[in-house]
């Protein structure tokens, strides 16, 4: 079979460039997907619910508490102190960098300077807010590094307020 014997030494080298290309493409793909596939967990601690004495409400100093009401259409309404005679607000703001965040940062600074204690934020989601709003506001707490915050139930006067402002 002389035809097969082409004569001359054939190089045993194979061009591996394409193979390496492919391998790196796949590596990149797997690296990106493995790090992104896993969801993240946001820890939430709720205040202890005591069924025996329901009237046992935590008393919060007016000048340190800020109540955030989550309304419909991705709007927030906040006020300082009590609803009947708020020290500031109620004011409607948006979520995010240009909405609630500067307000929180300002209030935290003011309260810390005035009382020497951290600001207490009470988050009250209304029935017309959605889950994204809740996660967003909790995320905001993490971003501004608020030490004390809690999730509470909305009361009827607050719902009335939201209705008046047209965000319920």
């Amino acid at each position, binding site marked *: 079979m002389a035809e097969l014997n082409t004569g001359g030494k054939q190089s045993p080298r194979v061009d591996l460039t394409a193979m390496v290309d492919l391998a790196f493409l796949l590596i990149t793909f797997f690296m990106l997907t*493995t790090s992104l596939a896993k969801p993240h967990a946001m820890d939430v601690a709720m*205040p202890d619910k005591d069924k025996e004495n329901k009237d046992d409400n935590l008393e919060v100093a007016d000048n340190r508490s800020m109540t955030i009401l989550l309304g419909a259409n991705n709007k927030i309404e906040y006020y300082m102190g009590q609803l009947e005679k708020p020290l500031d607000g109620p004011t409607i703001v948006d979520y995010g960098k240009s909405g609630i965040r500067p307000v929180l940062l300002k209030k935290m600074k003011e309260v810390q300077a005035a009382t020497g204690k951290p600001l207490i934020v009470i988050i009250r989601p209304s029935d017309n807010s959605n889950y994204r709003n809740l*996660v967003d506001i909790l995320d905001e707490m993490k971003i501004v590094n608020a030490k004390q915050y809690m999730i509470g139930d909305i009361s009827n006067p607050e719902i009335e307020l939201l209705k008046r402002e047209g965000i319920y």
Partner: protein
Amino acid sequence: MPKIKVKRASTTIDMTAMCDVSFLLLTFFILTATARQPEPLPVDTPASTVQIKVPDANLGTITVGGDGKVFFGVAGPNVRVRMLERMSEKYSVGFSQKEKERFSLMEGFGVPFKNLKQVIAMDNNERGKPGLQPGIPSDSVGNSPSELHEWIIAARYATKEINNAEMRVAIKGDAKEQYPAIKKVIDILQGQKINKFSLVTNLRTEDYGN
């Protein structure tokens, strides 16, 4: 003047070593990658800047989506079997060994307890059909607590018995879900004195941080 002979460098580089390394890495990433399980109730989780990952073991996931449908799943096949045994004692419904085995492979489920047998008998594709599973009842009937409440308790006991660890609870909600649906689940958790739980979120990709 002697002639300086410029040596021509070869343009081909030996790729063998590079190829070896890249395939080694490729193998590593393929093996460590966790295969994505088909989700019984696909939800679009909201994004946050939190960096902590959801743990793999000792975790019970409550999925809320599609207008208040609630699905429940717990990590680990052994825990699932034990949980089912506890529930079958509670509601006095027997399950065969085969059914338990099939149940242990189910990532999550969302049917009332009385329909669970039918869902176990289905194959994976059938089970995943949207709208087939109506969600676990989360309303309490009279004085007896809701089924979701019972499932969570059973899962907690099962985790404790088998792994000797506290079960963590994660709520995986759809971003568009209205708050009352989430509130209902939180109230059930608080009814069992679970005051700490996690909310499952995506990583926020847009520029949102400080």
